[in-house]
């Protein structure tokens, strides 16, 4: 068991966002996820890496796939999980987020996976708890594991991330998936263009190093990947675009628009899909779509994240 010299060593105890990760750390995470893919192919899909550890899944906001993905990732690492959802809990009785978490931590939780409606909630908890904190989505801020699994999927399908051209389409303003994707993709040297109606694309987003376009047809012929974001009706009340029909005509992906893309273009979507809005069923279930691969890869990425933060000290 001799270790190769000069190897990269992971030190972080928390994963609160891609903003603070270096490109080396992101690459290390993706490389580790690659190793975890193999575990899911075994007849016994379990390794004892986190045996005896407890992962607390704290979902102050609704989630299906992210929660299940983290839950399954934890159990494949032999960790125990406790689940907390805000509905019908002490939050309804007026307890603060930090108090809730401190109480759960007192029961012996080693890693918190947290989704919260408030941007920065995981950062606040990381500073105040002694357990590890993994951000599973905070408000409109970041969703690092989603971006990591998107980038992981791109890397697996295209063999690289550097200089890959990615279009992120839709509701950029309210999307934590967009923010984390832009951060991660830019750090790894990809080119990013964000596309959407002016009401949903803040001009300040250009400061993150991406191009802005309001015309999807001008963009699609030139990109390797199109990541179609979900329109998050729950995050805005006023009408930011005239109608669902107009939105899907201008910013949705249908067979006709797909025909103007490169033949090998990757169509991604973080889910859940509003079928007929962002994507027609024909595209979502077609050969260019890698939506279900994204979900499968998400498991490997989350195993890698839980494993790495459990070993981190900083």
């Amino acid at each position, binding site marked *: 068991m001799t270790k190769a010299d000069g190897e990269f060593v992971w030190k972080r105890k928390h994963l609160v966002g891609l903003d603070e990760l270096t490109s080396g750390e992101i690459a*290390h995470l993706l490389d580790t996820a690659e190793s975890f893919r193999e575990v899911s192919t075994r007849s016994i899909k379990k390794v004892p890496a986190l045996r005896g550890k407890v992962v607390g899944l704290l979902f102050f906001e609704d989630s299906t796939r992210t929660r299940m993905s983290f839950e399954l990732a934890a159990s494949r690492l032999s960790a125990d999980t406790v689940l907390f959802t805000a509905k019908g809990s002490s939050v309804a009785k007026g307890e603060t987020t930090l108090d809730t978490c401190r109480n759960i931590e007192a029961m012996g939780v080693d890693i918190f996976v947290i989704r919260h409606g408030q941007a920065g909630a995981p950062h606040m908890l990381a500073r105040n708890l002694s357990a590890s904190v993994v951000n599973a989505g905070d408000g409109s801020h970041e969703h690092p594991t989603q971006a990591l699994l998107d980038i992981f999927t791109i890397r697996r399908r295209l063999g690289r991330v550097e200089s890959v051209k990615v279009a992120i389409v839709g509701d950029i303003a309210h999307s934590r998936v967009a923010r984390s994707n832009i951060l991660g993709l830019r750090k790894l040297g990809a080119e990013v263009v964000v596309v959407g109606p002016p009401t949903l694309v803040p001009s300040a987003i250009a400061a993150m190093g991406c191009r802005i376009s309001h015309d999807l047809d001008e963009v699609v012929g030139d990109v390797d990947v199109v990541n179609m974001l979900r329109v998050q009706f729950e995050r805005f009340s006023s009408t930011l675009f005239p109608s669902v029909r107009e939105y899907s005509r201008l910013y949705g992906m249908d067979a006709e628009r797909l025909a103007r893309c490169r033949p090998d273009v990757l169509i991604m979507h973080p889910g859940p899909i509003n079928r007929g809005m962002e994507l027609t069923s024909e595209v979502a279930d077609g050969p260019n779509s890698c939506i279900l691969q994204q979900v499968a890869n998400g498991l490997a990425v989350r195993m890698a994240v839980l494993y790495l933060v459990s070993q981190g000290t900083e």
Partner: protein
Amino acid sequence: MQRLLTAKQVAAALNRLYRLIRSNLLDADPLAVIGIRTRGETLARRIVERLRAERDKPIEHGVLDITFYRDDLSLRKGMPLVRATEIDFDLDGKVVCLVDDVLATGRSVRAAMDALVDFGRPRAIRLAVLIDRGGHELPIAADYVGDTVDAPADARVQVHMKEHDGHDGVFLVNSKKRKKR
């Protein structure tokens, strides 16, 4: 870093190890040779090449990364990269020759055996190591040993192999220096 064995002595140890494996396992069937990453993997590849030259029956060849199975995971600070395990065949009923470079505490081998049984139920597991340096902490001994060296308890025995290090050799490394790096 102090040299314990020269390239020539490593070649002799490898020959001795190979002869032991050959006389015991040449006719074993079905046979799988599995190396423990990183140096055990290289060692296993060298052994498989020689066995294949002398034997008509097939030999399965795999690589095991034992990181997830280590019992000191929570004691370590910072994690080096985990690499994938490559065992794309069934272990049920096979004779498995597990290969590692150095046998010290026996904890790597314990972890490797735990990992192997997650892949199936081998008929037998044999352990081959290039160097037995003593200091065993578990009731684990190697079936085939290339050479033994005496090493102080607080030092580390490192095997260098051409494929990774540009040369073959066995070295004694002061463990305190290693920690600093």
